[in-house]
């Protein structure tokens, strides 16, 4: 029986103690949930487990044998397979090549010349994809995939390996319920085959449904062990934050009011017109690769998004008070730049005159926002690349709170954000709309979408495929209908 | 139809070859011949390619100043096989494909410069050498001759030796370092006039004008003027223009059937204060 043990692991980055004396273990046939606030050290821990980082102190043991890994390749050789939080695919390679990259099937041409067996490769990729119910063509270049599709490719890549220990770091962050369910089926099947699974997520309801045990990290330390379900959300949150939160999962907004007045945003799509009024939160729903990203970029004035944009260019859009939080952090943040510079990047004109930036005012604004969104560590000069995933997402959001906005275009705005911060961001979004701002919100998290939106437009392959107006039937069942009919 | 001569010079930015090119063009015009140039820029393989292009173009004869004595052999042979005569100018090769050679004795020039320094420094003191680009045959031969010449003067010694590209900037920079490292040098040998002119600026800036002998080579007009005004002490007039003309003449005769035997020599002249007036370029 596989058993992975972690004993007294510590790891620091510069001044940050990311892990401090962490010990835990997981056995084959178990799903261990690992939860904690943004920056708690979850990703760092599993990066050590899979051979990406070397620990400062402590030991990892697999079946009692000490394990000293120097690369993920060695980890995989030992049966430890990872789905990392940051989605990395090789854009120039096909879906099939990406899935099988670590172990490409080879044959011999004429009995001597080694060559990739492309037929076998396609078949193998296809079978893994089918496993998780994804209809991606194996020959599609990965660079052409949407964010969620790439996430599925990365998952398929891990599932294609013979795993003894499978580690999933927020695998469902941008997935829709349907994909999540399929993934869970696979995970349960693997558990039945006595694979050990470590599962990280901020969607605490998933933990409830999937995990056998649960470990809570805070500031790099294990603060709680729970050895069997159920895992009440309230207790988990208390352990994560050290505070008691007033039911953070509850629906925070009463939908159903379409504000009066002419639409502030309006674009013609194939299949109808998309509109958003002042004070409205206009939701966008859609299954995989629906074209939500393209629509938001177009609303923002990105010249490459296809179709006419309301503002002509991004500069004009920003000047007119529009802000975009893209679904992909890498598109929003300059990773090599500091938190501080990233936060003011889109509003430099307001924070500088011709000859110098107003450093004092920038410091003030940045300090205020870091406090407000609880961006940790509180070091404005740290390069964004050194933040945890959730804290990066907060910076992406903070960018648009630094100056007055009229319109916010949000693509998966709470992707990877912990439950407390998520509630905070929801509050902000609602307050923004209440003050007359317009919000276009695309989210694969249906509860979030339903909780926040006034109206929901459904997209399919870039077309407007349906629209849900406020009313009695406004709800999950109806939305699901819309999403899945004719899909 | 007019005969066409193909020309492959070692460089098209070195003043020496620019002057030679002028001589070739002038003389060919006088004789009613056409000339086409290919460029090499001191890159051996580029010169070999260029000569082969000239063969492919079926010129009537080729003038070349080979960057390296051996390396052009194959290209010369290709020309010979195609029945095209190749005459080497200024630099020579051992290739059997070489039809004639308008020569200079590089080693002898080096020895002559050394002898001149020995004479004007009273046969005593330290010498710094700023030699030409590494691996270039001409400058290797010059430097060898020079070093041999210095050895035969017991009071002289070479305390600094560096191989650099033939630019004024290099001459300047090297001389600046030389004057710091060896404040007591009596002479700086420059592989060509550009280096000597650069060195003369460093010497002047250090307030040592007239106290350090500076020698160049090629006899380019700015260098001759510098000899006249005392900034540079010696240059060697190779008369590249005349050389180019002689090359064309030799080729014209060869094509008419008058094959020269062996080498057609051209003389070099040391130009210093004593004879500079005869070599001054005509004022425009």
């Amino acid at each position: 029986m596989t058993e992975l043990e972690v004993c007294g692991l510590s790891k620091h980055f510069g001044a940050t103690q990311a892990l401090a004396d962490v010990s835990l273990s997981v056995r084959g046939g178990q799903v261990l949930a690992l939860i904690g606030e943004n920056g708690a050290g979850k990703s760092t821990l599993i990066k050590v487990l899979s051979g990406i980082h070397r620990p400062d102190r402590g030991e990892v043991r697999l079946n009692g044998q000490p394990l000293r890994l120097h690369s993920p390749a060695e980890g995989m050789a030992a049966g430890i397979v990872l789905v990392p939080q940051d989605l990395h695919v090789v854009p120039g390679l096909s879906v099939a090549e990406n899935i099988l990259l670590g172990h490409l099937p080879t044959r011999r041409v004429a009995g001597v010349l080694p060559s990739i067996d492309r037929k076998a490769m396609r078949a193998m990729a296809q079978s893994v994809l089918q496993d998780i119910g994804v209809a991606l063509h194996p020959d599609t270049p990965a660079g052409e995939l949407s964010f969620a599709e790439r996430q599925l490719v990365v998952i398929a890549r891990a599932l294609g390996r013979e795993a003894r220990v499978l580690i999933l770091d927020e695998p469902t962050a941008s997935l829709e319920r349907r994909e999540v369910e399929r993934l869970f089926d696979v995970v349960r099947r693997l558990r039945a085959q006595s694979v050990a699974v470590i599962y990280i997520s901020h969607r605490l309801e998933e933990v409830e449904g999937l995990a056998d045990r649960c470990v809570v990290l805070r500031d790099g330390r294990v603060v709680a062990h729970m050895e069997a379900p159920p895992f009440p959300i309230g207790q988990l949150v208390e352990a994560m934050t050290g505070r008691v939160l007033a039911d953070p999962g509850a629906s925070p907004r009463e939908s159903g009011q379409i504000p009066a007045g002419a639409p502030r945003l309006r674009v013609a799509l194939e299949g109808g017109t998309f509109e958003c009024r002042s004070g409205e939160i206009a939701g966008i729903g859609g299954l995989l690769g629906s074209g939500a990203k393209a629509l938001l970029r177009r609303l923002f004035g990105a010249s490459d998004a296809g179709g006419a944009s309301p503002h002509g260019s991004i500069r004009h859009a920003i000047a007119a008070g529009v802000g975009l939080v893209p679904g992909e952090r890498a598109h929003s943040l300059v990773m090599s730049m500091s938190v501080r510079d990233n936060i003011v990047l889109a509003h430099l004109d307001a924070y500088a005159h011709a000859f110098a930036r107003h450093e004092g005012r920038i410091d003030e604004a940045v300090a205020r926002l870091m406090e407000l969104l609880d961006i940790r560590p509180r070091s404005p000069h740290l390069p964004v690349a050194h933040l945890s995933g959730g804290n990066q997402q907060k910076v992406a959001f903070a960018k648009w709170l630094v100056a007055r906005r009229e319109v916010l275009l949000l693509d998966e705005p709470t992707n990877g954000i912990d439950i407390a911060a998520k509630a905070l961001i929801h509050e902000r979004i609602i307050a923004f709309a209440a003050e007359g701002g317009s919000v276009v919100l695309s989210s694969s998290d249906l509860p979030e979408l339903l909780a926040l939106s006034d109206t929901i437009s459904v997209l399919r392959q870039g077309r407007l495929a349906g629209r849900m107006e406020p009313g009695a039937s406004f709800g999950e069942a109806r939305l699901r209908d819309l999403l899945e009919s004719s899909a | 139809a007019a005969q066409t001569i193909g020309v492959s010079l070692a460089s098209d930015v070195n003043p020496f070859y620019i002057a030679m090119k002028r001589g070739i063009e002038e003389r060919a015009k006088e004789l009613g011949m056409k000339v086409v140039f290919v460029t090499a820029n001191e890159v051996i393989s580029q010169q070999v390619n260029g000569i082969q292009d000239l063969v492919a173009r079926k010129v009537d004869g080729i003038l070349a100043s080979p960057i390296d004595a051996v390396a052009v052999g194959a290209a010369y042979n290709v020309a010979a096989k195609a029945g095209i005569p190749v005459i080497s100018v200024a630099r020579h090769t051992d290739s059997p494909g070489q039809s004639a050679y308008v020569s200079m004795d590089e080693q002898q020039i080096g020895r002559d410069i050394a002898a001149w320094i020995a004479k004007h420094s009273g046969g005593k003191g330290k010498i710094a050498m700023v030699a030409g680009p590494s691996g270039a045959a001409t400058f290797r031969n010059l430097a060898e001759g020079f070093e041999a010449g210095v050895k035969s003067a017991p009071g002289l010694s070479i305390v600094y030796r560096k191989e650099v590209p033939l630019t004024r900037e290099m001459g300047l920079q090297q001389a600046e370092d030389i004057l710091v490292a060896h404040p007591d040098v009596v002479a700086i040998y420059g592989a060509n006039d550009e280096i000597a002119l650069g060195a003369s600026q460093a010497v002047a800036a250090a307030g040592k004008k007239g106290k350090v002998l500076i020698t160049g080579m090629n006899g380019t007009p700015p260098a001759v003027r510098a000899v006249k005004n005392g900034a540079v002490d010696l240059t060697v007039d190779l008369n590249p223009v005349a050389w180019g003309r002689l090359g064309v003449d030799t080729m014209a005769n060869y094509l008419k059937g008058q094959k020269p035997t062996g080498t057609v020599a051209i003389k070099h002249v040391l130009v210093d204060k004593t004879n500079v007036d005869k070599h001054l370029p005509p004022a425009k």
Partner: protein
Amino acid sequence: MSRSPPLQPLAGNAAAQPSVGSAPAWIRGRAVDQIPTAVLLVLCAFAALMSDRFLSSANLSNVLLQAAVLAVITVGMTYVIIGGGFDLSVGSVVALAGCIGAEVMLQAGITAGVAAGLLAGVAVGLVNGTVVAYLGVSPFIATLATMVLVRGVVLLITNGAPVVGEEGLPQGFLDYGTSRFLGLPLLVWTAAAVFVVFAWILHRTAYGTRIYATGGSREAAFLSGVPVRRISLSTYVVSGLTAGIAGVMLASRLQSGQPTAGEFYELNSIAAVVLGGAALHGGEGKLYKSMVGVLIMVVLANSLNLIGVDSYWQRVTIGLVIVAAAAADQLRRRRR
């Protein structure tokens, strides 16, 4: 608060498969992919128009001969660039392999000489690869340093003089540099063989795919279990090896080991790869396209010589043609 008409099913469903563009678009897609080839053809057409000798078989074999050495270097350079690297040292390696090869050949015969030349190339490749992949030094600075360093070593070994020996290099070796087979120089056949072998490896084997992965996204490749360091090291070794082969080939062509040989090959070779459509940030490119890039560079120089363009104007023309070729190739990537 009335419910508006729900679901307005629109237009026909797209298939699960992303829809395939119309045939013309497909052909267009392929055509713009062939811009470098088109540029080469235009160049050739123009050269043929301006000089009736350009298409003579003597000249065409000339062009191939002139391309052979650069092509072999460019094979390795393509590996390095696709793998996300950069190799400025190839020019110096050409000289090193030529000189060491010639030196050893004079003492111990042709085979030993050739082997020594190739080994020297591999050795430099190992150094480059180790410094880049294991010490983490930027490829530009690492290979710039070896470019200078190796040139110094060559000059030290040879004392700055060509390596020819008393009697010249062995006749068999000189013959190799001048002989033909089926009308084409042996050097061209050598280049072709190198191309075929390395094209197979790059495009057909798992190792080749891993090079693309390493260059395309080091992080993704690393996380997929690709030994990215070893892969990137290996590309420098390939580059060293091919530069070594090229050095030996050039020595046979120049009938000597030349300490100054190979200057500017690095820039020409990188230019050829980029003209062939590869991206300098890695992960893209095709070996045959790099060869098209080589031919563009060589035909350009050859045709300007044939036409008899003045050498200063040649520079201007070469600059213009390179920009134009690269700009044309960008048409297909236009975005933003």
